[in-house]
C-alpha cells in the first residue's frame, strides 16, 4: 500500500501528468483552431467552387485580385467604421447607464433587467424587429418622428446607401449596450466603499468621484468591454447579413459578409478564403497591440 501511494505521488508530480492534462486542450486547439487556419490559407491559394474534385492552384492570385477590387476596400472601411463605433457607442452608453443606476435609483432591479434584456435576444430576431422598425413609410421609427412633428428627419433607413450603416449601428447599439452596462455595473458594485467614502470626506464632487475614483478602478471591466467590442467589430456578420445582406449594392457590406457571399453566393471558395485570411491578419494587426497594451496596464496596476 505505501508503495502504491508513492507511485501515485510520483505520478502526480511528474511531467507526464501535466502532459496528459494538457493533451486534451492542446488537441482541441490544434484541431479546431490551428488546422482550420492552415487549411483556409491553403484553400486561398486555389481556385475551387466547393464541389469539383480537384482545386486548381493559383498561387497568390486571389490575394492580388482582391487588392484591385474597390468592393474589398469598401468592406474593410466599413469594418473600421464599426470598430470605432463599437469602441465608443455601446461602451459609452453602457457606462453612462451603469453610472446612473449605481447612484441608487428607485426601481433599480427593473431597469437592470430592461437594459440587459435586448442582449439576450438572438441576432436574427433583433434583425427582424429592426427591419420592421426601419420600414421607411409605415415603420415605427418613421411613424414616431412624424407624430412628433419631425417627419422631415425620417429616412430611407435601410435603402439609402449613405444612411444604411448608421441605421445598422443604431440597432446594434440597442442590442449590445446591455452587455457593456452589465459588466460596468458589476465593476462599479465591486469598488470598495471605503475608497468612495474617503473621497467624499475629502470633499470630492460627484463628477470628480466618478472620473478620479470610480472610473480608474473600473479598468478591468473597461478592458473586457473594449476587447469584446474590438473583436465584435472584426467578426461582425449576423446582424448585417440578416438585415441587409450587405446591401443595398454592397453599401453595408463588411468583410465577413463579403466572404460568405463570395463563398456560397458566387461559389469562389478560394477567393473567400483569401478574404478570411486578410480578415485574420487585419484583426490581428488591429486588435493584438491593443489587447497587449491593455493587458500590460492591468499587470502594471496589479503590481502597484
Amino acid at each position, binding site marked *: 500500500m505505501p508503495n502504491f501511494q508513492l507511485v501515485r505521488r510520483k505520478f502526480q508530480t511528474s511531467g507526464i501528468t501535466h502532459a496528459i492534462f494538457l493533451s486534451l486542450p492542446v488537441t482541441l486547439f490544434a484541431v479546431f483552431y490551428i488546422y482550420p487556419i492552415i487549411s483556409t490559407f491553403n484553400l486561398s491559394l486555389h481556385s475551387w*467552387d466547393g464541389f469539383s*474534385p480537384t482545386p486548381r492552384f493559383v498561387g497568390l492570385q486571389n490575394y492580388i485580385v482582391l487588392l484591385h477590387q474597390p468592393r474589398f476596400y469598401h468592406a474593410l472601411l466599413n469594418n473600421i467604421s464599426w470598430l470605432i463605433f463599437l469602441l465608443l457607442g455601446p461602451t459609452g452608453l453602457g457606462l453612462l447607464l451603469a453610472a446612473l443606476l449605481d447612484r441608487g435609483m428607485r426601481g433599480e432591479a427593473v431597469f437592470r433587467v430592461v437594459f440587459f434584456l435586448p442582449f439576450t435576444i438572438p441576432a436574427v430576431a433583433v434583425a427582424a424587429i429592426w427591419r420592421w422598425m426601419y*420600414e421607411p413609410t409605415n415603420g415605427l421609427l418613421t411613424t414616431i418622428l412624424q407624430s412628433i412633428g419631425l417627419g422631415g428627419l425620417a429616412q430611407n433607413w435601410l*435603402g*439609402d446607401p449613405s444612411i444604411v450603416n448608421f441605421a445598422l449601428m443604431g440597432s446594434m447599439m440597442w442590442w449590445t449596450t446591455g452587455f457593456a452596462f452589465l459588466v460596468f455595473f458589476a465593476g462599479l458594485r465591486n469598488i470598495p466603499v471605503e475608497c468612495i467614502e474617503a473621497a467624499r470626506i475629502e470633499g470630492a464632487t460627484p463628477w470628480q468621484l466618478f472620473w478620479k475614483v470610480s472610473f480608474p478602478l473600473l479598468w478591468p471591466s473597461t478592458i473586457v468591454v473594449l476587447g469584446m467590442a474590438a473583436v465584435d467589430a472584426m467578426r461582425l456578420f449576423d446582424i448585417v447579413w440578416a438585415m441587409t*445582406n450587405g446591401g*443595398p449594392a454592397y453599401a453595408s457590406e463588411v468583410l465577413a459578409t463579403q466572404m460568405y457571399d463570395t463563398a456560397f453566393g458566387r461559389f469562389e471558395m478560394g477567393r473567400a478564403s483569401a478574404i478570411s485570411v486578410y480578415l485574420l491578419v487585419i484583426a490581428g494587426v488591429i486588435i493584438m497591440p491593443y489587447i497587449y497594451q491593455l493587458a500590460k496596464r492591468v499587470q502594471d496596476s496589479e503590481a502597484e
Partner: protein
Amino acid sequence: MSNSKWIGVALCVLASASAARADGPKELWHYYAAGSEKAGIEALIAFANKQNPDSQIVGRVIPGNAVEMRRQLQTAFMGNTPPAAYQSSMAFKLKTFVDSGKLHDLSETWAKIKGDEIFPEGVQRVVKIDGKPYGIPYDLSLINNIFYSKAIFEKAGLEPPKDYDGLVAACDKLRAAGVEPLGNAGGPFWSLYNFYAPLVSTVGTEGYYKIASGELGFDTPDFRKALDLYRSTMVKCYAKNWSGKTWTQTADDVVNGNTGMFMMGAWAAAYFKQAGFAPVEKFDVFPAPGTEGKAIFQMDAFAVPEGPADTLETAERFVISAASAEGQAAFAVPKGSLAPNVTVDPSIYDAVGAKFAKQLADASKANAVLPNLFFLLPTKVGTELGVQLEKFAIDPSDANESELISTLESLRQEAQAEGAYLKW
C-alpha cells in the same frame, strides 16, 4: 461495472447511433419555411408518400434561401451525407453540382414521366445539362407581370397600360392623385427582374439568349438602350423609398392603397390572397410592356444526389410523383404557383392563376418561354448584374450607368476567357 466496460458500452451506443443515421429516414431538403409555400411542400410530400407507401420521404427545412441551402449541401457532400433529394434552382445552380459529379442523371426517370412532352421547351432547357436532365421541375412562377390595385385604378380612371408610354402616363396620373405609382423592393433580385421587360423589348428573345450565352456584350448600344428605357420608364415610376422595403412590405403598400402597381413574381398573388386582397376583385395583373405573348419565369426543380441504391429509389419514386399532374397540383394550389407540367388541369387555379397559366401556354406555343436570366448567366456575372442594377435603380445617374456597363463587360470577358458561359 469497470471503466473499460463503460467505455465499451459508450462506443456501442455511438456506433449504433451512426448506423441509425446511415439507415435513417430519406430526406427532402427545401427552404419553404412558412406560409403558403410550406403548405405546398407538405401537401406534395403527403401526396407522394401516399403514392409510395414503401418509400417514404421526410421534408426538412433548411432555414434561409438558396445560399444557405448551398452551404448546407456543401457540408453534407463533404461528409457524404447528402439528402435523398433537394430543392434546387435551375440552370447554373444545377450545373455546378453536375460538373462535380454529385448529381444523379435522371434520364430514365425523365423518360418514365415523358418529360419532353409534359414540360415546355423553355423549361426543359434549364434542367438539362449537356442534354441530360438533372432536375424535375415543380414550382414555376412568372416574373414579367405587373400587379395593380383595381380600386386605385378605377378611382384614377386608368386602364392597364399596354406600352411604355401608357405606363409612364399612368404613373404620372397616380402620382398626381397622391398614390405611389410603382412598387419595387430592395435586394439584388427585384430591380433585375423588372429590368427584363425593357431588355426583352429592346433586344428581343434572341438577344436575351445571346446575353445569356455571352455573345452579346454589356457595352453594346442595345444593352445601353435597354438601360435607358428602364431608367426613363420604370425607375421614373418607382415609389419613394422603395429600396428600404422588403417585397412583402411593398405588397402591403398595395393592399393598404398606398401604391398602385407592383411588378413582382407570381408568388405575390398568394401573399395578396392571404392578406384578404382577393384576385380579380381587389387586384389584377397585366404583362409588363414589351412582354405580351412572352413568359419570363423563375423555377425550382428537385435534384437527386448520387447515393445508395435504396435512397436513389426513394428519391426517384418521389420525383415521379412530384412530376405527375396530381403531384404538381398538390404543390401549386396551396403555394399559389404554376405547375410546369402542361397536362395539369387549368381549373385548379384561381382567376389570376388561370391568367398566368394561359400566358405560359400561349408563350409555350410561340416558343417565347424565357428562363430568368440570372440563372442562365455564369454565377458571378448574374449576381453582379443584380447588384449593379439595384445600384442603378437607386441612383440612375450616367456615372452609375457607365460603371454598370464597364463592370459587367469586364466580368463577361473574364467569364468568356474561362469558358464559363453556356448556350442554353
